[in-house]
């Protein structure tokens, strides 16, 4: 599966700083280096060698200020120092990366102050120390109309003076830099708690204005092909700064950043070179190469079920499963009858064979069947009931419970215990790969319950941009949708997807078009909380309420399968949802 373009598989896990814990002075998230298993930070890695990651496709964008998908994030986490970052073992608590310490949030949530480390240098050819002005520029450029970063508006849009679609060079008055190492964000609303989470996203990685502005004036910006780095690695470039290590669609080649100072960084950076050849579309062949070869890991694809089976029986230690704060569901459009009836929706969820859905992707190994919404390894997960769930009856049967389903159908007014309408209901799914099978299984399940389904299969991009994300297309069921947290805050999982205020005319991701005013209110209030535990509790409560309204059939909490060659000591990052290049080593 083409990870970098599969929306539902995007594991761009950004763990939000636990807000306010800074205020309590308790936060430490830097216990790296002890675990020694491949599921966390390796104990000791050998320095040197070349790591090869096999990819099928390209990054969505090589510019760290534009990329919004997992693979782009993986590369940027190796080449850039954003303000905050994560260690492989801890997907929940962020650690200061470029920042020196945790951010300071004012009481009213309208001011956020961050201090950055000194001694961090840009790679050649810029060759100078990073200052706060570089962070300011990095964020400003996300709003340029030559760049159009996808999340700038969503998470940083409340900064005073920030406007999407600004001309290149436009400054944002709300970002102040009183000295070379301090940045102050002034917000128009009290959403400082959300902002700090977003500071772990690659957009906050510094960009030298004097070097980049010429590139940013071009339409589209050419900075990506000429970028500089602050992390331990950089895209190989020539003296003028041209990133020759990036061949679009072919290969990304990372080498060590000569100006990187290990003392300013929590990353060990073991290997000397990272090679990422693309075009390995036959994932079975690629997986075999990795398992039988040396110094290789998988890149942007999941090994398919046949490989999983083989690995589990022979070489289980080469497989790592990473829960990534991602989930999949089948959205029912609550504005289209009969899905406007809540009992009917509950009946559907109760009777659905979710195990058959999961089987299309490889079975038990690749994830758990949800009992509520917030996925594992996120704050709010345990509070919402954990794996057991809050005990909602129609969510308790992974294989489907026909009797319970019939009961709910009767409550909805269908005496026969099944749906008896005769109209054709429109379901739009994707024709790409494995997801197509999921759509077909979904159709089967609906039909067993008496619905007459018209299944339309289109390309994934078409499905999103012309059907499921367009309310006016009036699609009743979207079986191939899902979500991925942007950073480790349940708000990023529940708000865009189930808050009625976020129903957009175009590009809508509240696929169920759930719009319950009390719930919306509750969500909007939760956004303004600054204490992490309060947040977790509030969103867990929202989770339960939304689940009870059964706006969708939640059928998977993903665990990403990743594989490596036997001589690779891999560090799997829950943050990115795949291997952490700066912590992985080869023997």
């Amino acid at each position, binding site marked *: 599966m083409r990870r970098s373009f599969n929306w539902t598989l995007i594991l761009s896990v950004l763990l939000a700083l636990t807000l306010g814990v800074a205020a309590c002075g308790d936060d430490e998230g830097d216990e790296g280096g002890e675990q020694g298993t491949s599921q966390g930070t390796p104990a000791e890695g050998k320095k040197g060698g070349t790591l090869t990651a096999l990819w099928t496709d390209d990054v969505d964008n090589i510019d760290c200020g534009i990329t919004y998908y997992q693979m782009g994030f993986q590369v940027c986490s190796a080449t850039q120092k954003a303000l905050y970052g994560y260690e492989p073992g801890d997907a929940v608590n962020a650690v200061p990366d470029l920042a020196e310490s945790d951010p300071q949030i004012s009481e009213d949530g309208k001011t956020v102050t961050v201090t950055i480390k000194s001694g961090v240098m840009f790679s050649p050819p810029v060759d100078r120390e990073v200052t706060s002005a570089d962070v300011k520029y990095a964020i400003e450029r996300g709003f340029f109309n030559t760049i159009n970063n996808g999340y700038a508006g969503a998470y940083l849009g409340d900064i005073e003076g920030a406007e999407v679609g600004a001309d290149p060079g436009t400054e944002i008055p709300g970002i102040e830099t009183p000295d070379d190492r301090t940045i102050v964000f002034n917000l128009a609303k009290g959403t400082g708690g959300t902002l700090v989470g977003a500071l772990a996203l690659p957009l906050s990685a510094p960009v030298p204005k004097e070097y980049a502005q010429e590139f940013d004036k071009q339409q589209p910006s050419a900075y990506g092909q000429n970028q500089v780095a602050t992390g331990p690695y950089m895209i190989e470039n020539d003296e003028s700064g041209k990133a020759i290590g990036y061949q679009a669609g072919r290969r990304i080649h990372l080498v060590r950043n000569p100006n990187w100072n290990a003392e300013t960084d929590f990353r060990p950076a073991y290997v000397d070179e990272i090679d990422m050849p693309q075009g390995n579309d*036959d*994932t*079975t062949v690629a997986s075999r190469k990795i398992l039988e070869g040396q110094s290789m890991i998988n890149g942007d694809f999941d090994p*398919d*079920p*046949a490989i*999983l*089976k083989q690995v589990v029986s022979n070489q289980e230690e080469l497989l790592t499963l990473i829960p990534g704060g991602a989930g999949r569901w089948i959205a029912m459009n609550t504005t289209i009858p009969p899905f406007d009836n809540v009992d009917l929706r509950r009946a559907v969820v109760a009777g659905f*064979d979710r*195990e*058959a859905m999961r*089987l*299309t*992707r*490889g*079975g*038990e*190994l690749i994830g758990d069947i949800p009992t509520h919404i917030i996925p594992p390894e996120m704050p709010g997960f345990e509070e919402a009931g954990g794996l057991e769930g809050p005990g909602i009856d129609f969510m308790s049967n992974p294989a489907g419970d026909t009797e319970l389903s019939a009961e709910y159908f009767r409550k909805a007014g269908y005496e026969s215990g099944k749906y008896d309408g005769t109209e054709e209901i429109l379901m739009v799914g994707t*024709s*790409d790969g494995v997801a*197509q*099978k999921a759509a*077909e*299984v979904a*159709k*089967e399940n609906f039909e067993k319950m008496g619905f007459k389904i018209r*299944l*339309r*299969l*289109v*390309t994934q991009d*078409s499905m999103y941009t*012309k*059907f499921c994300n367009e309310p006016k*297309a009036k699609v009743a069921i979207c079986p191939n949708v899902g979500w991925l947290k942007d950073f480790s805050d349940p708000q990023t999982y529940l708000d865009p997807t189930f808050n009625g205020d976020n129903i957009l005319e175009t590009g809508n991701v509240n696929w169920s078009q759930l719009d319950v005013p009390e719930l919306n209110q509750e969500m909007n209030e939760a956004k303004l909380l600054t204490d992490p535990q309060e947040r977790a509790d509030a969103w867990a409560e929202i989770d339960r309420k939304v689940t009870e309204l059964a706006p969708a059939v939640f059928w998977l909490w993903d665990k990403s399968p990743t594989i490596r060659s036997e001589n690779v000591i891999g560090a799997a990052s829950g943050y990115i949802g795949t291997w952490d290049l700066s912590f992985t080593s080869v023997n």
Partner: protein
Amino acid sequence: MSTGTGASDLLHAEDSGLDQMVRGEQAVAARSPLQLFWRRFRRDKVAMTALVFIGILILVAIFAGPITRLFGAPAPNVQQTSALDSFGLPSGPSSEHLFGVDPLGRDVFSRVLYGAQVSLTVAFIGTGMSVVIGVILGTIAAYYRRWVDTVIARTLDVMLAFPVLLLGLGLATACSGEDGCVGGLIQPGLSVVIAIIVIANTPYVARIIRGQVLSLREKEFVEASRSLGASNTRIMFRDILPNLVAPIIVYATLFIPANILLEAALSFLGVGVQPPRASWGDMLSDAVSIFDSAWWFMFFPGMALLLTVLAFNLVGDGLQDALNPKSTKSS
């Protein structure tokens, strides 16, 4: 698309009767060219076998339902997760599932039989439409000549310049929007495939027919008709068209297998008939990722395609040989 040997001068059909009479090989009772043609065709055992196979195939396509039930196989769209293992991988041929199952647990035997429906329907309808349109265009172009000819011939050239598969892909993708194309007439599924077949085939048919008509219009009988005062349409229909029947049949039978392959290729690339409808090309595309472990999934649909296309090719060859007695049998 190349069409094998050129059945250039099909008026030989009449000569052959004369030939045999002169050699005293048969009774003097005259037989129509059609009867002679059929006799010659019948003698070609290989072609006859292929024809019988096609007949069987058509029957299978029509009676796919009862046949699958006869063999005890489940319906083609029934998903049985019991036939999949814990990783979701399909099981192979067994007494329950003669040809094994596909990754969704559907019976391959059923799907292969039902797949015949798609292949044959698309090929016949698509070819039929292209032939009709191509004949009309080619005849008009060649008959009227001058600017009519130039416009039509140039348009055909433009169509021939397009990379067909790419254009087909593009058309199918573009028409997958809410309303399809041409006011909903062309939607993802059968209609798109047929449209693409028509666009791909018509230029070839038109060109060939144009060549035929160009030579035919110079023949004496046409001139005779004209001097008798016959209108253009009458000449086209009464004099020229009947002489085109033979090449039309031959080329149609040659295009059908190519169109079966084209539909399969489009389904292979994901823009053919919509699932869950069974199509051989679609099944082959699913097989690509699992063919080394689930060989049955590649083998049975692939062989079905191969045998079907082979049969049509053999019949086409047989027809050509039967119509052109000068050329010796090809195999």
